[in-house]
């Protein structure tokens, strides 16, 4: 009885120590578990894959440093799929942190495929106003953005001569961790302007986007670190998400083990009482 009582009140520091161990150890001893892509991820991959060269893709970067571990690998993978196929990319942010995050995501693929700013891609940076800004951009990019993130006037950028409004884009992808982000893109870009839209979202927000996936308003969806790892598997270029899935696998099993253990202790205690 006393033992059960003590087990049910296990000091949280033991739990913290176990979680720290199971998260760190797989990085030193990788399991290299296979990642099987789901239909939602395949949707995004197929949407990009079917675009002809020289197509235009708009990418919304709407996350901060707290969720960049989940979302940045998605952006990097999307750029790695677009750049070698000569697909032009325009990036913009309706969240203030997103603009600064976009630089970090761009650096690797731009150097890897030697893309030129202004002609191969343009980073427009941040626009204030969240969903209202997104609607305002729909009336014309040139009226809302005067310069790109580095201060270059957008009327001097060759790629921006092709961009009028959302109808100029063959595909829109948004990577977001909450408000403002995916839901606003669904309302404005998919429902309002009828553009094909794909989302990259954090694992905790995945369930709320399934109705839009079902209704066909989304061409696909990348959900959390798992979605990023699936995308990396599809483009055959492992990034930072694929090895991190080992740690996530073990951590999930450990937490499930804790819950099961706590319930066994709870029922044994209940029966004794």
């Amino acid at each position, binding site marked *: 009885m006393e033992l059960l009582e003590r087990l049910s009140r296990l000091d949280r520091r033991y*739990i*913290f120590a176990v*979680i720290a161990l199971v998260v760190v150890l797989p990085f030193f001893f990788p399991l290299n578990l296979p990642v099987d892509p789901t239909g939602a991820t395949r949707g995004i991959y197929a949407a990009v894959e079917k675009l002809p060269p020289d197509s235009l893709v708009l990418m919304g970067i709407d996350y901060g440093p707290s969720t960049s571990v989940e979302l940045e690998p998605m952006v990097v993978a999307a750029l790695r799929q677009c750049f070698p196929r000569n697909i032009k990319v325009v990036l913009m942010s309706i969240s203030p942190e997103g603009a*600064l995050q976009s630089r970090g995501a761009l650096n690797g693929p731009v150097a890897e495929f030697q893309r030129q700013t202004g002609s191969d891609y343009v980073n427009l940076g941040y*626009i204030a106003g969240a969903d*209202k*800004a997104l609607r305002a951009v729909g009336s014309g990019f040139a009226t809302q953005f005067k310069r790109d993130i580095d201060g270059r006037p957008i009327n001097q950028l060759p790629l921006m001569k092709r961009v009028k409004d959302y109808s100029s884009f063959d595909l829109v992808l948004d990577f977001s961790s909450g408000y403002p982000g995916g839901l606003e893109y669904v309302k404005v870009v998919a429902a309002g302007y009828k553009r094909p839209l794909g989302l990259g979202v954090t694992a905790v927000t995945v369930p*709320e986007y399934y109705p839009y996936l*079902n209704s066909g308003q989304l061409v696909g969806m990348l959900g959390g670190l798992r979605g990023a790892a699936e995308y990396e598997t599809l483009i055959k270029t492992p990034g930072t998400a694929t090895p991190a899935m080992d740690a996530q696998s073990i951590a*999930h099993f450990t937490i499930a083990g804790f819950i099961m253990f706590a319930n066994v202790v709870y029922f044994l205690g209940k029966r004794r009482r």
Partner: protein
Amino acid sequence: MKRQIPLFITFLAGLAMMVQFYLPAWNDWGDRFLTWFGILAAVAYVLGAGSLFVVNGKVIQRRGRDWQFKAVLLASLSTTLIIGLFWRYTSEAGVMGWLNPSVLPTDEGTWFDFMFQYVYTPLSATMFSLLAFFIASASFRAFRARSIESTLLLGTAFIVMIFRVPLGEVIWNNLPFFGQYNIGKLIEDFIMNGFNAAGQRAVLLGSSIGLISVSVKIMLGIERSYLGGD
């Protein structure tokens, strides 16, 4: 008049945004309101910062509860603001000065960029990482099969948690009989696209209807709490 003018502006803005969906001739007005909103949103940041200084400044002045934290908040806010607005220096541009228009605060190599990369980013990531530990501890303490509802929730969470990760899939695939079915697809089709999507739709429809009714109440001046008071 102090209340009637804001109420009239609210009604007009709401009406313009609504009508433009039905009358294409009004589209231009809708766009115009959205541009004004962008300007107002930018001004709201200034107002918000001012309000933050006044509210927290008062607490610091009278040494109220947690005044030290509020002092740290205001110091961090002021430092970020000053560096972002005035301290625009990069080693490449070689310019140090006030309001130098050739260097943007968000440019790579500026002090603002340094603060974002090396102060804000690690702090933010650390705070979020701590969630893993708290979730593990909280689920150990609180996740109990006490009723039928909680048992259903526990069971579903268990299946999703275990079999939506590669290790779970590997184990499932090696199970006799069950292994022939794709667990990822089963979870996708039955739990995420089935029960979850149905529940989410119900919540979405309910909250949307609620939102419409609140919007109409705001436009008609019945709901006035956004004006402060009443």
